[in-house]
């Protein structure tokens, strides 16, 4: 492409041309009949060589051009590829943070910020699931509602901070008294609800009794009397909506309140 290679063939050709030129220039061969056609042949050869060289130059030029072109194309391709990768990377990160936000929102929407127990929405979701499972497996769950006794007077006498603190302590006591697979949450105000999957009523009463004792035995450093609670317990009946189960547990709870507080009452 740049300097023409010095091949032995080309050297021989040059040598031959030089030899012919010397012969043609020699006056001794002036009258030779071969001299004139030989001179024409030499001239033609020179013309051919020029054309060939031009052809090679042009074709080399095209070759260089197309090579340059394909380099730009591959550079452009690489650049676009990098851009797309960057776009995906950034976009994936945005998506990831959205996912985390929605996860956090879901968590927040299902939990009570004060006690960090599940909230009413959480309990209703779980009640729906547990009811479905109870019907499918013919293993009813028991349900209990806990209500702190005289809660209003804690707020009135010690202030709302003390009331909040008491709610947290009661939450801990409930959680600690239940088994690992039991479900509990804050139903609202000073009311809590627990679901005991695959648990007959007599066993549920025992668990509820443990919860009642757990609450009674809390040592409060900001309230100078014992906090107690009433618990109403019942068993899920096949075919009913869980709101009926809750209603029955509520009746048992009211009964416990009427019977003098700090008690567990059950309804089949």
């Amino acid at each position, binding site marked *: 492409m740049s300097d023409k290679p010095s091949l032995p063939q080309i050297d021989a050709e040059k040598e031959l041309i030089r030899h012919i030129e010397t012969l043609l220039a020699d006056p001794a061969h002036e009258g030779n009949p071969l001299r004139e056609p030989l001179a024409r042949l030499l001239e033609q050869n020179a013309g051919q060589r020029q054309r060939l060289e031009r052809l090679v130059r042009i074709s080399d030029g095209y070759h260089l051009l197309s090579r340059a072109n394909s380099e730009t194309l591959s550079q452009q391709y690489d650049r676009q590829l990098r851009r797309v990768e*960057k*776009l995906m*990377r*950034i*976009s994936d*990160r*945005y998506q990831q943070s959205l996912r985390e936000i929605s996860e956090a929102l879901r968590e927040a929407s299902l939990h009570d910020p004060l006690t960090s127990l599940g909230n009413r929405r959480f309990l209703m979701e779980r009640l729906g699931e547990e009811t479905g499972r109870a019907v499918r497996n013919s293993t009813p769950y028991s349900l209990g509602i806990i209500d702190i006794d005289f809660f209003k007077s804690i707020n009135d006498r010690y202030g709302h901070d003390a009331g909040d603190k008491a709610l947290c302590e009661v939450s801990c006591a409930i959680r600690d008294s239940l088994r690992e697979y039991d479900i509990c949450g804050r139903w609202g105000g000073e009311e809590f609800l627990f679901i005991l999957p695959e648990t007959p009523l007599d066993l549920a009463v025992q668990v509820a009794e443990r919860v009642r004792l757990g609450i009674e035995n809390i040592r409060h450093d900001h309230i100078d009397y014992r906090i107690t609670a009433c618990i109403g317990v019942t068993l899920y009946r096949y075919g009913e909506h869980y709101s009926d189960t809750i209603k029955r547990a509520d009746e048992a709870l009211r009964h416990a309140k009427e019977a003098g507080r700090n008690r567990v009452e059950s309804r089949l």
Partner: protein
Amino acid sequence: MEGDSYPENSFEFFGPVIDWVERFLKDSSMPLKLELKLVYMNTSSVKAMMDIFDLLEDAYTQGRQVSVNWFYDPRNERVLDLADEFREDCSFPFEIAADVR
């Protein structure tokens, strides 16, 4: 520019913005400084921002004075990382700072 960006048709939305940047860089010789407080962007908005930064980069390599200040809410450090990703291929001044206001 500030806020979340998830337009339904981002070409329609960002087209005029990109046109403006292009025209400004072409028709004037004044410095261009972008102040951004972007939080969420969908994929096509990310693409549009990359296009804008490319325009700035081209102008910068031709000697034009351009810069970007990207402010983020210190409570949302993720935006810092994302802005950093955007900055990766930019050689012009690109500041990422916590918005303390």
